[in-house]
């Protein structure tokens, strides 16, 4: 079992932002998390990464309670938002620093960046710019690359398609899928893009008001089912 969630409750003030009684994500799953704004997707990711303190329950990452141990970090890559980038570094400096934190030397980092060359589209490296001066799209790319280049066993990406141009969206979709297949990486992505999510996910969880409404294995009619659900929500 790769990720195990038990009786996880998170409240913000009096609002229950997340309430998941049980959720198991086996190794190699490519899990797509969908839901409207405020459904609890980012909250779930933050709890998995021990960035929030749960009011109840726990998250086990490879059997380790994430709030009690920090060893899980060595095999977990993630990107939540641009606040997690070190904005006064250049992209090169940042990626080498992240690589070093995971025990990768510069040569290995350079090697592992090769598959991302088309995704970077000559917009990231060699511009002598600090990360803070990049556009939101390029910051998103730097964060995603930093999370993926360490070849984590568990990869968590919050809204990876946000801010990206269509070509980059397609590119990153394929890279995520390839990583999942090649390294058997457990991938958790959240997205509002139902089409891309259903394209690559082997399992889809629909969150609504912090509760798991649907837990679906991907099949041909999943996209239709999700579309119908959200249309119904709009009518309600």
């Amino acid at each position, binding site marked *: 079992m790769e990720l195990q969630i038990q009786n996880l409750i998170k409240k913000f003030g009096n609002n229950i932002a997340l309430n998941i009684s049980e959720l198991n994500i086996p190794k190699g799953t490519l899990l797509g998390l969908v839901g409207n704004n405020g459904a609890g997707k980012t909250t779930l990711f933050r709890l998995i990464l021990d960035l929030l303190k749960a009011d109840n329950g726990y998250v086990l990452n490879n059997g380790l309670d994430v709030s009690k141990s920090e060893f899980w970090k060595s095999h977990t890559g993630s990107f939540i938002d641009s606040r997690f980038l070190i904005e006064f570094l250049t992209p090169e400096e940042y990626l080498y620093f992240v690589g070093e*934190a995971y025990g990768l030397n510069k040569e290995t980092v350079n090697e592992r960046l090769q598959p991302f060359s088309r995704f970077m589209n000559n917009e990231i490296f060699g511009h002598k710019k600090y990360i803070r001066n990049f556009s939101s799209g390029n910051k998103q790319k730097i964060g995603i690359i930093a999370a993926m280049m360490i070849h984590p066993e568990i990869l968590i990406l919050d809204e990876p398609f946000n801010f990206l141009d269509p070509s980059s969206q397609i590119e990153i979709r394929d890279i995520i899928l390839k990583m999942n297949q090649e390294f058997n990486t457990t991938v958790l992505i959240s997205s509002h893009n139902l089409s891309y999510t259903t394209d690559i996910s082997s399992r889809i969880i629909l969150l609504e008001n912090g509760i798991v409404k649907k837990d679906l294995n991907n099949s041909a009619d999943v996209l239709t089912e999700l579309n119908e659900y959200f249309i119904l929500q709009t009518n309600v």
Partner: protein
Amino acid sequence: MFQQQLRQHQWESFSRNSMFERNLAIRIFIYVMYGFLALEMLGFGFFLDKILLQTDTYERAIDTFNSFLPYIFVFDFVVKFIFKTKESMQIIPYLTLPIKRNLLFDFLLRKEFTNIWNFYILFLVIPFAFKAVMPFYSFPATVLYVLLIYLLCITNSLVLNIINNLISRSFWFYIVAAIRVTFPFFLVFVCKIKLGYYLTLLVDMYLNYNLWIYAAFAVIFAALWFINRLQMRSILYYELQGDKIDKISSFSSLTFLNKFGTIGDFISLELKMIFRSPRLKQKTVFPGILINGFFFYMLYSADNVFAVGGQFFFFFYGIFSIGFLGLVMGQFLFTSESSFFDGLASRKASIFELLKSKYILYSSYSLLITLLLLIPAFQGKINALLLLSLFFYVIGSIYFLIFQNAVYNKTYLDLFDKGMFNWEGTSGNTFIISMFVMFVPVVLLVILNVIFGEIVTCCFMLFTGLVFTLTSKYWLAWTYKRFLKRKHKNMEGFRSN
């Protein structure tokens, strides 16, 4: 290894600060200013022993200085409270990396040892210690004395961190900050405890190598360090979720502003912005209360500082007190709206109305403070003519100058980013205009006062102030027209987040 990397990042975050990115001249100017201040403190420290001996409080200058330590550290606390950046959020990028959190917390705490706010006072203390401690003790004791002051500065910062962390939980913990500031005064003036005297004894024991003093200090320091470390973990979770649980302040009830149409709407927007933006609130609310509170305290204190400090001090403080809101917010003219300026510019309401509303709000604040100051004026604490002149000088001449920031400001300001000593949103132009506004009009007044006396200075302030106040409609329009010429360039800067 990570310690070294983190230290390097600490240096890079400073040396690559966006303020330094654009203008070499500004960088040099700031270094010269810092150098000048350091030299000034060194010089003052060199003659401090002689000044203290003249006070006739104690026979030795070192004892007099030690008896002032509670007040020096109140000042140190207040300065740090206003200017020192809160560090905890700076470790967010490292949280998901395989670096132990305790290592990050310790790194943040160790940064206190190299933080400029913890050793600026040493520029004063080092020359003083060698002149006032060495003759009575020994060289090692002199070094220990400097070390003591340095460690007390860090201790003060550790206390500040604890209070700041509590404040981020609840607004009510400002009371703890107020208690920290007023406690020494309470002990001395209300409880009639000879705090200064006891401190001279304690420091004397310290300089005579009394081990109990060292042990007690080590225990207090370790306890504060431990509390800080404990607090950091919980506060980090809290800050990361902070935006989800922030309660909005009840400012939507300012319905009377609706009567004033667009201007009223913009004033309401500005007030909401000030009270809901952590950055602006931190820069305005508490410092505003403190500065005006201190102004009144000084006016009513037995030995009126203004009488001792001379007119420069009074002009400077008077202008800053009456014009506080305009001087602080004026620095951020339109950069405070940078995150939504495109939205404002593309709507029906004119930016000129926004400019006017800001002038009305800042002037109303100045009027309120002036009305409050009428009480001490009627009691003979301040000259009423001087007060009236200061009011018009502020809302006329001073605001005319500070409003020029509207033309030149072109940086992005993150309203939800905290940190008082945070250069983001402050460009070289802002810095120059603000420095000019802060010092040039005051220096002019002092020169006039020395040459022609107070009446002429008051008349000058009143005349120029009235001219600029009565023509405010026209110079605001002129400022707005000049802004329009640079509009696209400025707006490009606003989007540079």
